[in-house]
């Protein structure tokens, strides 16, 4: 049993992949909005790095897809009052 659990854990680590995504963000009106979104993204388990820019109305997120999905990233943006839409996945 222990061996199986170890294998499952190892497989999880092995198949986890660091992803990069650009998200269009609607509704930002001032520089402080960028911090509100960034803070909530960084709170999510699996988000490695988040950068939000007001001038382009977008967020760049590096995340571990083992712990969080793109949909959950959008939900994290939605939770603080903004609308996110995946613009680009960077391979």
């Amino acid at each position, binding site marked *: 049993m222990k061996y199986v659990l170890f294998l499952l854990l190892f497989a999880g680590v092995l198949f986890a992949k660091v992803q990069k995504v650009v998200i269009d963000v609607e509704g930002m009106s001032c*520089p*402080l909005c960028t911090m509100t979104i*960034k803070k909530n993204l960084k709170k999510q388990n699996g988000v490695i790095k988040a950068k939000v820019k*007001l*001038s382009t109305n977008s967020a760049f997120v590096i995340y571990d897809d083992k712990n969080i999905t793109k949909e959950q990233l959008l939900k994290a943006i939605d939770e603080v009052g903004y609308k996110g839409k995946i613009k680009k996945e960077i391979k």
Partner: protein
Amino acid sequence: MRKNLLLSLGLSAILATSLFAQEDVRKFKVHYHFDIKYSDSKEYPAKLWNPMPFNSNYQQVKELSFSGNYDKFNINRENIYNANTFYAKWGKDKKRKTLDIDMIIETKNISVPIDVIKKASAKNLPIPDDVKLYLKATTHIPTDGIIKALANKITAGKNDRFEKVKAIYDWCTAHTFRDKKVVGCGKGDVGKIVTQKEVEDAYKNGYYGGKCTDLSSLFTALVRAAGIPAREVFGIRLGKSYFSKALGKSDDKGFANITTWQHCRAQYYIPGAGWIPADPADITKLELVEGLKYNDPKVQKLKEKYLHSWEMNWVGFNTARDFILYPKPEQYPLNMFGYPYAEVDGDVLNYYNPKEFSYTISSQEIK
């Protein structure tokens, strides 16, 4: 590095050279203290842009000195609105980032007589080119759609510019209210203000809650939509109001902690009379703080006064909206410049939370 400079660096845009006549003159010693903190990193760089007062016939900076451990600084007005800016930059290291700014500011109550405004308005002179910037829409000051329709309805049947402004001012003061839940002075996002609640008739029963930036911006947008230049004026209260404690107070020695006393007013332009001061937002503040109804004689008295005057227990910084500071920050455009603005490693510090930022501002009235 430690610097302590009494100005000699071409800062005439800020420092005044002449004195007011002595009647109604008030003098304040204003002190800013910054101690920029950041929790994410032990070593951090920082940049700060602080709004500084402009000089006019109703406010003058008589003395300015500053000191701190910044690596670079400049005082500039290199932005589309010529907003006076104190910029300081600190390198990436562990040290606390500090800056102190001291100013002696003289103010004088300003009032443009109604008959002067009416006479100038009746002439219907052309709007000068240098004022036309304040007819344009910005991201947060729309002048079309609902705003245009609302302005048309409020000013229906009126052709005179001042009559239109007065109708808008009367409508704003009667239909808006101060919403204490709004953080700071509000974002002044007029598009959101007029659509925050779906209503049958925006003219009759719209929901127009906000704080001073919100309400001054709504007034500004409506006046612009009526074809008359208007603008918000961002600044800070400095001390006691002789009209009401709701509009500024100090202790018995004239001292006040003004860290959170930022206040946005408004101006409109009538060719031949110039920029006229107005403050529709303070009518709602008086109502809320003193628990008065709109029809109360005290409210009506202030309403009449603030269509064309300002009590100068306040100093103005700039009229900038939706613009880019200099040097260009990581985040732009800036919605408004009534608060200190700072970035640490590209992250914006919360200027609505002076303790976290951190900064303090105090004012001592000098007799």
